[in-house]
């Protein structure tokens, strides 16, 4: 086991940010910590790293208790903070070299690693740039390079893609998967369910400092009753149509608002055909029509009664 968190409690004054949080991270996985804003993701990461004092709980990394002076543990950890943390007075190259040097004293080895990190994030053309001159996406990449240049065995990333354009985001996500393939265990926090679905081998959903679900994305989606969601763009739905639709077997919920008809049904109840038949029979005109499998948002919605993102 790479990380073990047991019964972690962290309060900020009266606010309970982490409420008996427990979870493990296994070697080689990409664990996603998914949760809405304020659910305690950053707090959890900072507690794990021994930056924050916590009220209760036990944290072990690589099987050993984590403490601020556990340097042998820290040596193998790479962290990418939620907020860009680099020196404005140092260039791209110097920043990576500085942070890498805190882990790798040997000059030759360090030089090689810094070059690799620059290649990895694709900042070769910008090595002499000061952070102030970098765009948001490039800055994020620098932030990542500073965290991983020393080739850590465990990498924690706290929302590394916030405010990054889609292309840079894909670069970053691919990079993370590459690091994982090269052997690093990854903890990835985000409130973007798409990202988490895309790269994580296991997902923990957090809400109000508690684990509310834990498993692969298939497992999570199986936890809930929703099986399929059909959306129809149409402007000609009357209340009697709705009543009729609700009589379709397995249609658990039928709603109509803003020109969108949404029919939700339980698992393995393929209702798309039934809905289409109905529309044809009633001669209701429609635009696009699509059927979706449940998302992590639906999982979150069903467990907590609220949207993951609002």
């Amino acid at each position, binding site marked *: 086991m790479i990380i073990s968190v047991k019964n972690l409690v962290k309060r*900020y004054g009266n606010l309970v940010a982490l409420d008996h949080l427990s979870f493990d991270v296994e070697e080689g996985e990409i664990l996603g910590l998914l949760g809405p804003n304020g659910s305690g993701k950053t707090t959890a990461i*900072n507690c794990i*790293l*021994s*930056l*924050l*004092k916590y009220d209760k709980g036990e944290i072990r990394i690589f099987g050993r208790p984590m403490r*601020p*002076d556990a*340097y*042998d543990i*820290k*040596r193998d*950890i790479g*962290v990418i*903070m939620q*907020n*860009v*943390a*680099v*020196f404005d*007075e*140092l260039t791209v190259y*110097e920043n990576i*070299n*500085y*942070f890498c*040097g*805190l*882990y790798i*004293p040997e000059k030759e080895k360090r030089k090689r690693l810094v070059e690799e990190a620059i290649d990895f994030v694709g900042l070769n053309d910008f090595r002499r740039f000061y952070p102030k001159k970098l765009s948001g996406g490039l800055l994020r990449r620098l932030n990542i390079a*500073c*965290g991983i240049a020393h080739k850590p065995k465990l990498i924690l990333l706290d929302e590394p893609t916030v405010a990054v354009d889609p292309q840079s985001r894909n670069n970053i996500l691919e990079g993370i998967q590459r690091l994982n393939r090269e052997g690093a265990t990854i903890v990835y926090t985000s409130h973007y369910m798409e990202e988490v679905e895309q790269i994580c081998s296991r997902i923990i959903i957090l809400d109000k400092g508690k684990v509310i679900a834990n498993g692969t994305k298939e497992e999570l989606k199986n936890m809930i009753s929703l099986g399929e969601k059909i959306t129809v763009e149409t402007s000609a739905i009357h209340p009697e149509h709705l009543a009729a639709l609700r009589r379709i077997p397995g249609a658990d919920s039928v709603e109509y608002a803003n020109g969108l008809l949404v029919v939700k049904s339980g698992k393995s109840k393929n209702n798309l055909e039934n809905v289409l038949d109905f529309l044809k029979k009633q001669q209701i005109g429609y635009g696009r029509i699509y059927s979706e499998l449940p998302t992590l948002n639906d999982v979150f919605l069903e467990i907590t009664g609220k949207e993951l993102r609002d």
Partner: protein
Amino acid sequence: MFFHIFTNRLKCLLRDRMMIFWTLLFPILLAVFFNMSLRNIASSETFRPVPAAVVNDAGYQKNAGFRSALKSVSEGKDKIFSLTETTRKNAERLLEDGKIAGYLTVGDKIKIVVNRSDFDQSIIKSFVDSYLQTSSAAESILKANPPARSGLSAGLSGETDYLKAVSGGSADPDPSLNYFYSLIAMACLYGGFWGMKEVMDIQANQSRRAARVNLAPVRKLKTFLSGMAASLAIAFAEMLVLLAFLRFALNLNFGPKAGLVIFTSFVGSVVGLSFGAFLSSLVKAGENMKVGILISGTMFCSFLSGMMYQDMKYIVEKNAPVLGYLNPVNLLTDSFYCLYYYDTYGRYLLNIGLLGAFVLLFCAGTYFVIRREKYASL
């Protein structure tokens, strides 16, 4: 590891323009400004002897040593006093009319009578002080070691010794020097900017960079001290630049003890650095707040030690001497002053000792904040 952190800190610090402005350019600009306005004053009146009187009575006549000492500094081109020997009554009247800065009476003790306290009065006082210092030191040696008498009395009767003590060895008394001394002292304290930055870059709850540095497998104190070493190197180098500028560009004469002047600036840099670090550990508010406190605090201390208005130093000395001892800028100013005006080191060492105490206090305070490695909130 030390070297890695040290060199990178040097880069970081030297590229911070705001810091360089406050710690180097600002003092130099201020010095140029002082120089211009003081040269204007100096050209209209060069050093003016202090008008003083001495009560010419039996006590005065009896104390030949003092009499000849006083006379020797009241004669010639470089005289310190324009002296009137007169009766007590007349002296009182002269003082009341503002014709003299003060008068002396010589009885069992030498007394100084002045109306207010400013630069002129303090010259009278420091003359008497140094006379007493030299002569009483002589007396105590005489009692303990009679054979030394012949050598000593030669030294005493050759008034040159305390003459020197007052007029600063080979240097002429230059009242404008005090402005520059407090300016140097101020620049030392502005070295606090560096200490402030070091703390912000090591305390995870003060900056994101610091949080990242805290995650590295390096002892926090080691990182901090390596950075402080870089800061000290820069702060002291800046002091050397400032001193060189004052000496060679503005032609300021620091007197014969150049080595000690440099040493005192080094002590000043350490004081400034530890002061900034201490301030930065205490005040968690943002950088602007810290900079504000550092600048206004230093400016206030400099004001009290006479940087804007020279007599301020003497006003504080007279009305609230404790304040003088609690003001690091004043202690530094006074140290430079002692080096220039006194041949003896008692007062200088006292100042340096007090500054050392300040450094200890600041360092201890900083250490107690720095050594914490986990934070309640980031």
